[in-house]
C-alpha cells in the first residue's frame, strides 16, 4: 500500500486545495464586474466548501457518508441559488441593458431621476 502514490496524498492536501479554491472564488467575486462571472465565482466557493466536507468526513470513520450527504444537499442549494441569480441577471439585463455591477446603480438613478 505504501508505494501507492494515492496514499501519499493525505486529507491535508484536499483542505489546502479547498482553501485556495475558496480564495480564488472570493477574488473572483471581489474583482469581477460581470454579474455572471460573480455567480460563477460563488459556485467556486460552494465547491471549495463541498471539498472540505468530503475531506472532513474521513475523520469520522473510513466508511462515513455523512459529508457526502451534506454535499448532495449543498449542490442542490447552489444550483437553486445559481438559477435565481441568473434569473435576476436576466431581468437586470432587460431593464438596464447591462450586467456590469458598478453601472447598474447609476443607470437606476438615470432612469428614476434621483
Amino acid at each position, binding site marked *: 500500500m505504501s508505494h501507492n502514490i494515492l496514499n501519499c496524498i493525505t486529507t491535508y492536501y484536499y483542505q489546502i486545495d479547498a482553501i485556495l479554491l475558496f480564495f480564488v472564488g*472570493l477574488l473572483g*467575486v*471581489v*474583482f469581477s*464586474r460581470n454579474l455572471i462571472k460573480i455567480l460563477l465565482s460563488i459556485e467556486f466557493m460552494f465547491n471549495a466548501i463541498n471539498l472540505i466536507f468530503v475531506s472532513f468526513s474521513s475523520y469520522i470513520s473510513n466508511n462515513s457518508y455523512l459529508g457526502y450527504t451534506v454535499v448532495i444537499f449543498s449542490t442542490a442549494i447552489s444550483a437553486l441559488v445559481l438559477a435565481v441569480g441568473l434569473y435576476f441577471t436576466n431581468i437586470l439585463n432587460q431593464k438596464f441593458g447591462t450586467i456590469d*455591477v*458598478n453601472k447598474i*446603480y*447609476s443607470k437606476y438613478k438615470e432612469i428614476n431621476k434621483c
Partner: protein
Amino acid sequence: MLEDFSWFILVPIWVSILIMGARFLGIGFSKRNTVLMSILSTLISSIYCGYALFYTCNNSPVEVSYNFLSIRELNFTVGVYVDMLNSLIGLAVSIITFIIYIYSAFYMDKEKSFARFYSLMNIFNSTILGYIFSPNLFQMLIFWELIGAVSYLLIGFWYNKAKVSVDAKRVFVINAIGDVLLFLGFVIVSMNVTDLLNDMSLVSLPFANLNLIVSSFYASTTPEIYSFVSLLFVFAAIVKSAQFPINSWLINAMSAPTPVSALIHSSTLVMTGIFLLMRIFPLVASNILSLKIMIVLGSVTALLTSFSALLQTNIKKVLAYSTSSQLGLVIIALALYNPIASIVYLVSHAFIKALLFMCAGVVIKIIKSKNILFMGKFRECSPIVALSFLVGALALSGLGFSGFNAKSLLANVFANTFYLNFLFAIIGALTSLYIFRLYFLVFENKAGYECSDLENYNNPKYMIAYGTLIFMALAIILSSFIIPNGHFSVLYLLNLFMGILAYYLYNFRNNFKLNSTLYHIIVNGFYINKIYYWGEIYLYKFFTKLISLFDTYILGGIEYLVRGVMLTLSKVVHQLQVNNFQSYICYGVWCLLFVMGIFIGLYSMILNIFGV
C-alpha cells in the same frame, strides 16, 4: 446689652433690600421715605457705637460669635467684637454716614436712580460696620472684599460714561491686589498657628486671642517668613489706604459722585487699611523691617502727593492727593508705636476731609465745573459754604479747631527724630499751602464768575446742604475740646506763613502758566498711573506672546496631527459611500477576516490559559 443688639450691622442691609425690593415690585418708596429709612439705620448704628464706646471705657471687650462655615473640625466664626478702638471708629463712620445721607438727598436730587444710590450706600455702610466690628481676621477678609466690590459699584455709579466705568474697573482691579495679599497672610498665619497649638478654634484668628496668636506664630516660623507675612499685611493696608506704590487708584476713584467721594474716599474706605494695621498691631509691630517700610512708604507718599496736590486744577483731585498724604503721616505715626495719636488724627481727618468734599460738592453743583481756575468770588455768593470750607482748611492745615490739637499730638510723635521732624514740617507747610490755595482760588479770587451769572444758589433746596455743612463744621469745632489740648510751636508759625503766602499768590490772579517738564511730572502724580499702565501693556504683550507660542506649536501641532489622522481615516471610510460594488465586497472580506482573526486569537488564548 451689647451682645443683644449686635444685629444692628444688618439694619442697613435690610433697608437696602427694602428699597430695592420695593422698586423691583414696582411700588417704590418716595425719595423722602428712602432718605428717612437710610438715616434711621445710621442713627441706630451711631447710637449703638456711642453706647459701646461709653461701655467699653470701663469694661472689657465684648465678643459675640456664630458658626459660619464648618469643614470637618475647622469652624470659621463670624460675629461682633466691640472694644474701644472699633467703637470709636464705628462712631465716627456712623456720624459721617448720617451727615452724608442727608447731604446726598440734596446732591442726588435730580438723579434717576436715586433708590439704587441709597441702597448701595446702605450696603456700603453695612459692610464697613461689619468690617470694623469683626471679631476675627476671617470676617475682616470677607468684608474687605465686600467693601471693594461695593466701592466699585459706587464709583461706577454713572456707568454709562465711558471714563467712569473704566476708572471703576481700574480701582477694583488694583484693590484686588490688596485682597490677595491679605488672604495670603491670613492663610499662612492661620495654618501655622493651628499646627503649632493643635487648637482648631483659632483657625479664624480671633482678635480676643491676638497675643497668643502672634506669639505662637512667632514661635512656629523663621524670622524671614515672619517678616514676609507682616509685610503682606502692611502692603494690603497700603493698597487700601492709597499709599505710595499704589496710590494712583484714589485719583481714578474721583470720578464717583461727590457724596461717594466724601464718604468713601476721604474717610471710611481709606481708613480700613490703617484700621487693619491697628487691629493686628502686635503682629506688625514686632517686626522691625515692616515698621521701617511703613515709615519709608508713608514719608514718600506724603511728600509726593503733597507736591501733586499743590498743582492740580481739579478741585476733587487736590483733596484726593491731600488724603493720601495725610494718611501717610498716620501710617508713620503708627509705625513709631503711637496708635493713639494716629487714631485721633485719623478720625479728625475723616471729619475734616468729609466736610471739604461736601463743600466742593456744593461748589461743583452750582458752577457745574470741577476746574478751580474758573471759580472765584464764591464767598460772596454763598458765605456759609465759604465759612465751612475755611473751618475745614484751618483744621486740615493745623491752624485751628480739631486739626490743631490732632496735629500737635502728631508733632509730638515726630519730634524725636530730626529727619521725621523735618519731613513733618515740610508736609505741614505744603498742606497749608495747597489747602489755602484751594480756598483762595475757589472762594476769594477776583477773577471769576459774577454771582448774578450763577442761578439758584439761594434755592431753598440748598438749605439742606448748608445745614449739613454747618453741622459738620460745628462737629469739627466742638471735637477740638475732646482731644487733649494742643500747643503752639514753630510749625504753627510755618503753617500760618504758608497760609499768608497762599493769600498773596492766589488771591489776585489765577492764570499761572507753567509748562516745564517738572510741572507735568508733578501734576500727573509722578506718572505712577502711567507707569502701571505701560507695565500692564508690556506684561500683557509678553505673556500673550508666550501663550501664543504654546498655541501655535503645541496645540496647533496636535490639531494638525488629528486633522491628518482624520483625513486618512475619512479617505478609507469614503470608499463605503461611492456606489462601488467591489469596494463593498472588499470591506466585507476585510471585516470577515478581522472577525475571524479575533475568534482565532480568542481561541488560542483560551487554549493557552487552560494549557491544552
